[in-house]
């Protein structure tokens, strides 16, 4: 299997890009159609299986990253510190990740405790961010996960978040109406 011409072009642009590149930007840069670029991205995604690289995307922003399995070597080379979060921060992160966009009050309602500190911690580590204000009384901020979140947890996209079963083995998404 060889890469199509467009896939090679997309790969080259993503290789030098320091930050995620949107699909529309790729389309404009390469001068190919949106469908062709989408196909090229899918082709690359498949191509990287089993290699040291992955194609990561959040929404329509794409970036080449290293494969999570190679993290120990890359971290050693970069001298990168390992991420450490308390179980409280992880709970808040879990709510934001699976329920985004979500307000602070909603996070606190689910966890049953004040979440000021954990939200601040997650914001300062760039794992979550303010997405904007909700059109509701008090115009509360809505939070969502960041690109760094995907990277730190080795997820190629939000769709790659594992489905976690409730303790009883019943998928609880259906049990909780929202």
């Amino acid at each position, binding site marked *: 299997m060889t890469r199509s011409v467009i896939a090679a072009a997309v790969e080259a642009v993503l290789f030098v890009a320091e930050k995620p590149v949107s699909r529309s930007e790729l389309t404009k840069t390469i001068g190919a159609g949106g469908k062709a670029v989408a196909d090229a991205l899918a082709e690359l995604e498949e191509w990287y299986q089993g290699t040291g690289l992955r194609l990561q995307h959040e929404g329509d922003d794409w970036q080449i990253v290293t494969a999570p399995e190679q993290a120990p070597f890359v971290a050693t080379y970069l001298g990168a510190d390992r991420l450490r979060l308390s179980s409280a921060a992880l709970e808040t992160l879990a709510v934001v990740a699976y329920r985004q966009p979500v307000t602070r009050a909603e996070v606190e309602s689910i966890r049953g405790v004040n979440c000021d500190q954990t939200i601040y911690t997650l914001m300062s580590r760039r794992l979550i961010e303010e997405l904007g204000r909700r059109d509701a009384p008090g115009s509360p901020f809505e939070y969502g996960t960041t690109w760094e979140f995907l990277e*730190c947890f080795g997820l190629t996209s939000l769709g790659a978040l594992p489905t976690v079963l409730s303790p009883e083995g019943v998928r609880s998404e259906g049990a909780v109406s929202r």
Partner: protein
Amino acid sequence: MPVGPRPPDVTVAGFEGPLDLLLELVEEKKLDIFTVRLGDLADGYLARVRAMVALPADEVSAFLYIASRLVLVKARGLLPSLTPPSEDDEIDTEEGLRLRLIEYATTKGRAEMLGDRMRAGERAFHREGGTVELPPKGGNPDALAAAWLKVLALTRRAEEEIEVPGERYSVEQRTAEIEALIAEQPAVTFATLLGDRPTLGYAIVTFIALLDLYRRLVIDITQDELFGDIRVERKVGRMEELPQ
């Protein structure tokens, strides 16, 4: 952490909050979260909360809130006909509280999964600082070639200067040359003797030769001002001593 003795089976610091404590009670008693009568947990829950007096008031209040809901649910279980359930707050009903508990259990499971991923360290990295530093636009290859030629010319000149070896001019030889020159013309400047672009060795040899000639009283040396030109003159009256 609370100070002083505490009940042996209570770990206050081990909970992330009131829902966590409730979930812990359910799991401890190996009860089914979907069918457990939550009112039955009220007594056990209150016992745990009573052991938490060392916690800050605002934290305890959150626990007390859930405790009050449990007691309410329990009371309704005992007197179902006397207390119509409130429709305002879903947590006031057993099912409302149950949904909260299930949602929290799910969140906890997700948090554990994220924690596992975090501890496994299986993360991705992107290229850092990968932007290529491009040279300014309008670069001209001809200008580069011209600059290179200039550098080459400089190098060649330096080589030429080095190629004038000081060894070719022994002091004796230079002395003889100056003596012959001074025999022909009565005076000459030091600058003339050095010529254009003398090497350091040539200048030194010339200077030593002059000193030698001066010592042997062949020449006179005068200098009108500091750093001025040095005049070398034939010493009158000693000409007869010069060899032919």
